[in-house]
């Protein structure tokens, strides 16, 4: 005996009442069940050989916006014909267009159809449009009229003539075509036997309710079994941005290594971004194609940095007391006050060096948004984050700098091997590039570093060596996340963020 539940019994009864053959929609109407419940019941009953499910594909057509306009105003070629008929079957083209009030964009179309249908031609000599014969209503126009009246039509139900017209209207892109599958149910002989005997269903529920629990009614009901393999809707949970999560993780590692976080403003004085870092004022990297400058006001105030400014100025000009020759040019304090968008996190390091809270020995780091007028592509962003830091201490040397880099490569990036290459920054000497090897990734450039030049530290009042480092974390993240396009860091793709696995 088949175990029939409530929805299945309702479906069978509705089908019996409909004479054994019905569309699903009709059953939904009669039984009061929702569409998906009837479908589920049918799919349960069919394998029991109680009913059969027939699928009938129907092609539904409706007029689109342009189609509706054509239906109201007539096809453009018909409108021309009507206008021509009023002027005795021959007229100047422009005048006809005007009389038919055809807009520019459909004029060519109209002429094309006139000639294709053989309704009218342009006379060779006079260049006038001439009516050829009495145009009868075509099948396309009949279909248009039908659609206008009924709103829609099923292609399979149309006469052969109109079915051909469907292709024409489709070609003119004035109808939308949708293939719909309609399902119909039919009682089988076994099904008839069962419904004749009468079907009864155990009351069954899918959702346990507080009421059932409180009243104890749950004892008299049966909880429906579920198909636990059935797919469920996605849950999109709240998540941190994967790149920011990666930076959070990096921060915690740096904190664990004894680094304090330092900060600085996004709109920066050139003094901190450049001059204080011993970048000469005519350095190519200080031109408009390498830095963003603020339109108004152009300059900020250096008032509270006067005592540093004077020394920095002299150091640029002639080396001051640093033992350097300096750059040998006339330093402009106005240029040093120029406002710009921070182009390198080193600006934050310069601010830290003159801070009254500076600790020696000390370790500091910053993760800061930097801005450069690069063209945005697979490997460049115009806004990006830099991770940089400094270490100050009495006896720090190049040996220590290499030790710091090795620690970062192994502890932070999980590299297996490291190599050091001579590098160049205007503000460090010696300068070292860190190249790290990681299994599966090969060698990659991982960071730049160096010891701040005396021309930088002495004018800012720092008498101990300062090791400075920057890490190429973007590439590390991209490798971890399996992406090769840096633009993903600022992705506008919600789907990608939702699906991104936690790394």
């Amino acid at each position, binding site marked *: 005996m088949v175990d029939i539940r409530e929805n299945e019994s309702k479906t069978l009864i509705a089908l019996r009442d409909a004479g054994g053959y019905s569309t699903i929609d009709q059953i939904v109407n009669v039984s009061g069940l929702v569409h998906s419940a009837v479908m589920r019941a049918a799919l349960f009953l069919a394998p029991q050989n109680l009913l059969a499910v027939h699928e009938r594909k129907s092609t539904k057509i409706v007029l689109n916006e342009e189609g509706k306009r054509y239906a109201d105003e007539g096809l453009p070629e018909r409108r021309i014909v009507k206008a021509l008929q009023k002027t005795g079957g021959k007229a100047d083209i422009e005048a006809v267009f005007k009389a038919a009030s055809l807009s520019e964009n459909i004029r060519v179309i109209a002429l094309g159809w006139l000639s294709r249908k053989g309704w009218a031609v342009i006379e060779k000599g006079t260049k006038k449009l001439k009516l050829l014969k009495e145009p009868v209503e075509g099948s396309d126009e009949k279909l248009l009229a039908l659609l206008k009246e009924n709103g829609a039509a099923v292609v399979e139900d149309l006469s052969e003539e109109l079915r051909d017209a469907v292709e024409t209207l489709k070609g003119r892109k004035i109808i939308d075509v949708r293939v719909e599958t309609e399902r119909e149910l039919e009682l089988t002989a076994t099904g008839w036997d069962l419904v004749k005997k009468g079907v009864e269903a155990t009351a069954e529920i899918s959702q346990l309710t507080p009421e059932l629990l409180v009243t104890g009614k749950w004892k008299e009901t049966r909880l429906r079994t579920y198909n636990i393999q059935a797919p469920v809707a996605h849950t999109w949970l709240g998540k941190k941005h994967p790149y920011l999560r990666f930076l959070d993780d990096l921060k915690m590692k740096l904190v664990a290594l004894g680094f304090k976080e330092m*900060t600085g403003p996004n709109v*920066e004085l050139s003094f901190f971004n450049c001059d204080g870092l011993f970048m000469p004022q005519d350095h190519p990297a200080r031109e408009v194609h390498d830095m963003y400058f603020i339109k108004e006001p152009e300059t900020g105030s250096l008032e509270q940095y006067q005592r540093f400014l004077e020394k920095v100025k002299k150091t640029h000009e002639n080396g001051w007391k640093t033992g350097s020759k300096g750059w040998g040019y006339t330093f402009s304090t106005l240029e040093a006050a120029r406002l710009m968008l921070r182009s390198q996190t080193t600006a934050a390091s310069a601010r830290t060096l003159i801070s009254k809270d500076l600790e020696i020995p000390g370790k500091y780091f910053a993760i800061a948004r930097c801005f450069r007028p690069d063209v945005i592509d697979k490997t460049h962003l115009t806004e990006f984050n830099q991770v940089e830091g400094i270490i100050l201490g009495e006896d720090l040397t190049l040996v220590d700098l*290499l*030790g710091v880099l090795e620690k970062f490569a192994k502890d932070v990036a999980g590299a297996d091997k490291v190599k050091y290459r*001579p590098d160049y920054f205007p503000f460090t*000497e*010696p300068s070292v590039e860190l190249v790290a090897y990681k299994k599966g990734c090969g060698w990659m450039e991982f960071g730049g570093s160096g010891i701040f030049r005396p021309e930088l530290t002495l004018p800012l009042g720092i008498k101990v060596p300062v090791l400075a480092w920057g890490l190429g974390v973007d590439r590390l993240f991209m490798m971890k996340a399996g992406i090769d396009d840096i633009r993903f860091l600022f992705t*506008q793709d919600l789907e990608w963020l939702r699906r991104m696995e936690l790394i």
Partner: protein
Amino acid sequence: MPTVEVELEDLESLLGMELPRDEEKLNEILSYVKGEAKNLEAQEIRIELKDSNRADVWSVEGLARALRGYLGFEKGLKDYHIQGSSGVEVNVDLKLKNIRPYIACSVIKGAKLTEAAIRQIMHFQDKMDQTYGRNRRKTSIGLYDFDLINPPLRYEVAKPSEVSFVPLEFSEKLTLEEILEKHPKGIEYGRIVRKFPMWPVFIDSENKVLSFPPVINSNDLGRITPKTENVLVEVTGTAIDTVQNTLINVTLALADRGGRIYSAKIHYPYKGMADATTPNLKGETLKLDLNYVQKVIGMQFSPKEIRELLEKAHYGVVKATKSEVTVKVPCYRVDVLHPIDVVEDVAIAYNYNRIQPRWPQLLTIGGLSQEAEFRDLVRELMVGLGFQEILTYMMTAPEVLFTKMNVDAQRVVEIANPRLLSMTCLRNWLIPSLMEFLSRNTHVEYPQKVFEVGYCVVHDKEKENKTSDIETLACVTIHSDASFTEAKSALDALFTNLGVSYSLEESSHKSFIEGRMGRILVENTELGFIGEIHPQVLQNWGLENPAAAFEINLNRLRQCLQAKP
């Protein structure tokens, strides 16, 4: 960083050895001069040279010169000397004083100038003009066929319409004025001279124009071909050291091609300025304290070791004692400003990879900034409320901030030199960034709930940098049932968890629906606003679902929390 194009065979012949074709191995060698080769398959390989001050290695000749030392083919100071006077005298016009006052010349005889060599010299000239010469503003270089020129020469000024000559690559005579209009170099570099009433010209004793510095040479005299036997080099500019350093480097590159160097005499009319004989190949001498070397590198070297390392880097060692080495710096090493530059060369010659690294044992306590700690707390709560964190650019455009948000334009921090129309200013509020994000995701399943903690920047006269960074939280929920109530419920949860009691004050804002918008107050401080997005704004962004949002100034919220007992 400068990039030079080099023909590998040419470099090899100057170097006297074959170079590895393997990128990794070649770069190992190039790393001595901070170079990295790219594009190895092409006839001309590209070498990026990171040091933007070491102009001597931007020529293939200088590159070979430096590498020969590191590779052990030669050591110590390389001996370049002047064979004698070329007989060239240059008289400088006093009127150039405020225009382009300095000039330096040399003559190189007998250099082997193959087509390839000429190409390389042109590359080098370009590189020097662009980088070291700051796009010819500071210095520019001219090369001439010395045998076509009749000294003495005059470096003087002329009225733009009065002097004419046939510029390089042209066949007809143009006046200086016409060159600025018609010649590609005139169009490119004209701005350097245009502001002056009189422009510089370089002329020989028969009144033939050699060039119009810094714009263009004469096609007749200023063209070097494989037939040219003797070359006159001229550098003009605004900084005398840079002018002389540039001349040295071009002269030596030609000398490395087998040329002999002859000097020229420059007569300056400026008060207090002596006549000069150029080029000056003497180079400077400095004293290197061995203690200092040890303090920087962290390793002890004997005077003998230091001498060997210095000589590998082509420095001359005049005298070495236990505590000090007297070092002769090659004249072409224009980048050496301070003994620290020499110390770095010692370390490079020793090879960084031979140094045993050490993690410095400094006792320091790490920590996040207060801002970061609070930011992380807020982010954690927003994630708990089911919002997806997003990251957007701070640079944007008024169209995004105001037009599409249905509000009047406000004064924002604008960029003087924007690159893109969509990035002309800094945002002064955050919700527009979120709306822009949502507008790009209309095909993605709803409901969508997103948030960002990011900086907004506003004008602030009181600050040294004339702006304030406002750390801001904003969130938007968008779906068919999104409403003010939903946003308020999230706001409520956030503030409850932060232990802050707040109130909402009815207000109006054209981005939000009238009567469904309010300002968020804590005591009497305004922290932000909340509301249901106006349908016009949704339509502007092409969004087809209702949305609600709030935005909070986290700087102020943090202050409120700190003020709590």
